């Protein structure tokens, strides 16, 4: 196993190197020009603008800029933000915990609900319950996230207050992040908005995976042995049906670190998604690259972890 992991790690470092080149090129050509915001500043002369461009290192040839950035990144230094002048690593560290808490809670709630809905749908295939679950999960799935987010806020914050009911916070208030109750209160709406959109995909996956397994011979054998449907379902069917779910969840986890740009913006959640979005708009290359590097590193690492885990939960898979 260790040889396998070592080999994957070496492969991964090459992958990461290629990713950094791609990210660098995409950032330079796909993101805003950091100098654009100064274009109409009446107090800045042409010389001021040129001096700033030089200070930000934008005058150096692109390969020089890239290797300079890579050299520092390899030493764990993600550089300094063009605008806030704060170390990018620090800026990410400040926001990462909020994103991790929000996104992992969402993932846990989503997977739990999806398992429940998926199992019910599969067991009661084509029943009214299955149809209702399918219909509602697809409505959620097709809703743009800003719509579900603002819709929930309008109902559970604005309207509930108007109706004199206990109401949820909008997220625009100043609240104490050290108070667990306040934290949970403020997570309810963003988590719900994300779950509504995400749950359908997982639920459908569990449903089809379970249906496939339920049709296999060994399930018939288990039933023939006289086992109760519950034992057949949970002990024999679900265990195998859930295997592909491990891969999906494993591959989703690193993307969770990127946060949710729209949800974080709507609920004023100080996370990675907003950090990325707000600084990308201004062309703050060090911040954008820093966030992309963290996410891509996580993707690569979690791919390996997922593969290793998969072999552990499914004895049929061997390391080669």
């Amino acid at each position: 196993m260790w040889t396998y992991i070592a080999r994957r790690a070496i492969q991964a470092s090459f992958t990461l190197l290629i990713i950094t080149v791609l990210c660098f090129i995409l950032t330079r050509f796909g993101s805003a020009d950091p100098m654009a915001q100064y274009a109409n500043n009446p107090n800045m002369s042409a010389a001021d603008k040129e001096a700033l461009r030089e200070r930000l290192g934008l005058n150096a040839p692109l390969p020089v800029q890239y290797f300079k950035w890579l050299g520092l990144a390899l030493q764990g230094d993600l550089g300094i933000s063009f605008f806030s002048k704060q170390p990018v690593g620090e800026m990410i560290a400040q926001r990462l915990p909020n994103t991790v808490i929000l996104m992992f809670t969402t993932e846990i709630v989503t997977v739990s609900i999806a398992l429940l809905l998926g199992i019910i749908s599969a067991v009661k295939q084509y029943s009214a319950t299955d149809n209702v679950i399918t219909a509602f999960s697809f409505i959620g799935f097709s809703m743009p996230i800003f719509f579900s987010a603002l819709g929930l806020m309008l109902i559970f914050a604005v309207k509930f207050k108007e109706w004199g009911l206990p109401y949820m916070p909008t997220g625009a208030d100043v609240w104490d992040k050290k108070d667990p109750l306040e934290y949970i209160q403020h997570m309810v709406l963003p988590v719900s908005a994300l779950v509504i959109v995400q749950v359908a995909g997982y639920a459908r996956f569990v449903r089809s995976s379970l249906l496939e397994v339920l049709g296999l011979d060994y399930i018939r054998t288990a039933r023939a042995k006289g086992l109760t449907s519950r034992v057949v379902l949970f002990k024999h069917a679900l265990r195998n049906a859930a295997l592909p779910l491990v891969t999906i969840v494993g591959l989703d986890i690193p993307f969770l670190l990127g946060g949710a740009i729209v949800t974080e913006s709507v609920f004023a959640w100080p996370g990675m998604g907003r950090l990325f979005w707000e600084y990308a708009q201004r062309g703050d290359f060090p911040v954008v690259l820093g966030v992309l590097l963290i996410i891509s590193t996580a993707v690569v690492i979690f791919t390996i972890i997922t593969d290793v885990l998969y072999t552990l939960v499914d004895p049929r898979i061997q390391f080669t």
Partner: protein
Amino acid sequence: MKKNLYFLLSLLVLASVILAACGTPATEAPAPATEAPATEVPATEAPVMGPAGTEPIAFPDGGKTVTGAWSQEPDNIVPYYSQMSYAVWIAQLTLVGLGEWDADGNFVPELAVDVPTADNGGVSADGLTITWQLKEGLYWSDGEPLTSADVKFTWESVMDPANAVLSRTGYDKIASVETPDDYTVVITFSELYPAWQTLFTQGPNNAGSILPKHILEGQTGLESNAFIHQPNVGSGPFVITEWVPGDYMTLLPNPNFYAGRAKLDQVQIKFVPDPETALAALQTGDVDWYPDFSESDIETVGALEPAVHLLVVPGASFEHYFFNMGTVEGVDGQGKSDVDGFCPFKDIKVRKAITLGINRQAFVDSLLAGKTSVPATQWPNSGWTNTSLQPDAYDPDGAAALLEEAGYTLGADGIRHGDCNGTDTKLSFNFETTTKQIRVDIALAVQSDLAKIGVEFKPIHTPAGTFFGSYADGANMPLGKFDMAGYTTGFYPDPFSDNFFCSQIPNAENGAGNNNYHLCDPALDELLTAVNASADPAVRKTALDAAQKYIYDNYYVVMAYARANVLGYVDRIEMGDMSDYSNRNWNAEAWNVK
């Protein structure tokens, strides 16, 4: 497995119960966050004998607190190192200057006793020496004296090449700053600098906070200094005591503020990027004010009266449409553009017809709820406005007649065409601007108006980052590759701008030029140069009036509307006179709650 399922189900039930139970009770007030100990400090008058304290005044139980929501977070607080309006707003709360502009645009003293004038001896006869007199008994929030030495240090710090300030404009024209005593600052310029009022002062488009010498002396590379990012000692009505990046900021009263302790006990600023959230939060009372609504929100916010009040403040900046006047030949060998602008625009009759053919008041009334106005010139809503000029009224018949006169007749497709420098040219041209919704809406209205006089106006909406790109980036405006364009700018508080100068036309030799009009008119150069020939505001006003009239008479730009600042605030707070956009926190010490 069965056990696992039950465990999973129990978890789900538990989660549902928690989710259901954690709604905010309707009466619960937000818990005020404070870092300082809760000891009450009595309100003080302006200190004379000594500092009233050495720390920000702690938030008392049941104190008066307000929460504002801002759409962006400042990057740095000291404005020499930031160009964000949000940085200027926080600086107005925390680090003030020698003077500022009030809600009516008057230049008023802040740390100074009075603003320098020729009459009080503050401005020398040759305009090269400006003498400021500081108030006596000024202290920083940490109790250290604030003196003329701090002003001199501020200048030295800005000019120090080891500090990467964004701009040294104006400060680089100062030959010396003398401090004969603790209260007197004598600034001598190496050449006439008519915009001296913008140095060491707080205002829209400029922010000259005075920096604390006792904290920053001997340090360089200030752009990365913790104080620049988050000053913990200040001279404004408040001091930042807590800043959670990406989340919120807490400010407590400065015990030593020159005008006395602020009326509020605490101000919190929450960073809320989405205006829809801010709107919801105003309705639930999660926030008390939001200054970042756009003009297209006027109706939505106005509909929330009486719980949420709408405040629209027309400012000195303006949305304008302009013609690409560029020529490859230039004028007398200067002001050459890389490409020629749209030929018919060289004819004043065409420019005037387009101005008369757009019903500007109609879109101000419909899209902006009539809350702002069509300005006559590029110096609206300020003491610099040439009040003798009035915007032209909508006159489609007059516009059509002018186009006929200019030789443009209606074609079979309903679009006029005519001879322009020997080429049959259709009056069909592109108009470039950003993707902002109000710009899209107005461009559609303009398109419809101009179609009525046989002019085809084709809007192109480009993301702001690309639209405002530089010459080096190949952006259309500096390269002159556009017919007509539109955006917002403003020349205030100092009225001078070199945006019209021949020498500022961007071209291969001068990529950084800022004359996006690509207009080279030596007569206008001369008129605008006269604005900067004196340090006396009265003389400058006369010169500027003439320049405004010249631009107005030549129809070089189509003034669309004075940009309005749209605020929403809840009934319980009183924010007093709100000033123009960048200057709106000028009187934060007077903010209060009912």
